[in-house]
């Protein structure tokens, strides 16, 4: 069985021109960035990424490690791709940016 590729070590942070607020309802998360002024209903992976970045700047390896603890072994092969997609999506929403 091949080991999933660990993502690059690019670092990310919450977009600094505002504050990230979150609300969780029945396991689903809504986020609001006070700088961008938009509200989004985000996936569980995106919610965890934002949660990590809200605590501190993280590189992708760190995010991958944090998410690895939350997914089952069988989902591990999909995690790297999912993380990459999620980071692109959150960047396009102006919620995060490269640090």
């Amino acid at each position, binding site marked *: 069985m091949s080991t999933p590729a660990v993502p690059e070590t690019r670092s990310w942070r919450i977009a600094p021109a505002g504050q990230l*607020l979150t*609300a969780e*309802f029945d396991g*689903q*998360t*809504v986020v609001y960035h006070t700088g961008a*002024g938009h*509200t989004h*209903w985000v996936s569980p992976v995106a919610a965890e990424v934002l949660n990590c970045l809200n605590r501190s700047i993280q590189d992708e390896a760190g995010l991958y490690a944090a998410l690895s603890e939350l997914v089952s072994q069988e989902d591990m092969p999909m995690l790297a791709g999912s993380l990459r997609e999620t980071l692109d999506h959150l960047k396009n929403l102006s919620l995060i940016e490269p640090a």
Partner: protein
Amino acid sequence: MMRIRDLSNQELADRLAQGLDLQTGPFIFHIQSREAPVFSGLRRLYADFPVSKEALRDFHVRVRRPANLRRWYHPQVVFEHDRASPFKPLPANHAFASLEWGMNWCIAGYAHQYLTLHAAVLERNGRAVMLPGEPGAGKSTLTAALSLSGWRLLTDETALVDLDTGVLWPMARPINLKNHSIDIIQAFSSEAIFGDKAFDTHKGTVAHLKPSLDTVLRMDESCRIGWVIFPRWQANSPARLTRRPRADTFVFAAENSFNYSVLGETGFRTLDRLIREADCYDFRYSKLEDAVLAFERLST
């Protein structure tokens, strides 16, 4: 307390010429107009509303004839707020509708002491149901039917959420119905009292439904949220409630708020509290009578 019905026709006309201070929930509108549709709309639909004696008014509005030659051939009216005209002139027989739309515009644009959401709100047994919805979903028709079936109307158009406590405040103003909805509600209840129809507006034919006396007398009673329900009329559909995710409801409400972005973090926190307290549903129906029964079951 003086109410509009206590004024003679001459007194009402005189007050409107000088400025009538009308209380609608927490707002006092200083209304000036010499237009007959404004007079008759207020006389018929706002008869139970108080005439305020407060020195401070929230909004100064006026519906008047613009000073152009067109007034001789195709009479028009213009709505003004603080002497400025936010809208283009409308045909003179749309004067009352113009006043109603203008009052909505004032509240949506300036009432930032509340979180304002584009939704109807009604109350029964101490809990409020909020009805957001896209245009054409049947929100106003259902709101009118519920208001004629024992539910207290808080608003047809703009929900006012208290920023400190999260309660909903009433405005109790008339319900704006369009096109076929007018006939449907007339057929639904013999107690429905409408103002004059305005034809060929940008929304088609519109008419306003008078709020009940109970609704007006209790216009200072706030209420906690119970449900957020997204109605949709669908041909041949039985009345059916299905759960809707709160997160999805939150995003829809935020996108359909008039001032959520203006309020920033306060708007987010206020909406968070509101949605957390509410059970959220989608609602499909085809018959108003079935819809009213479904809401009655929910409220008991």
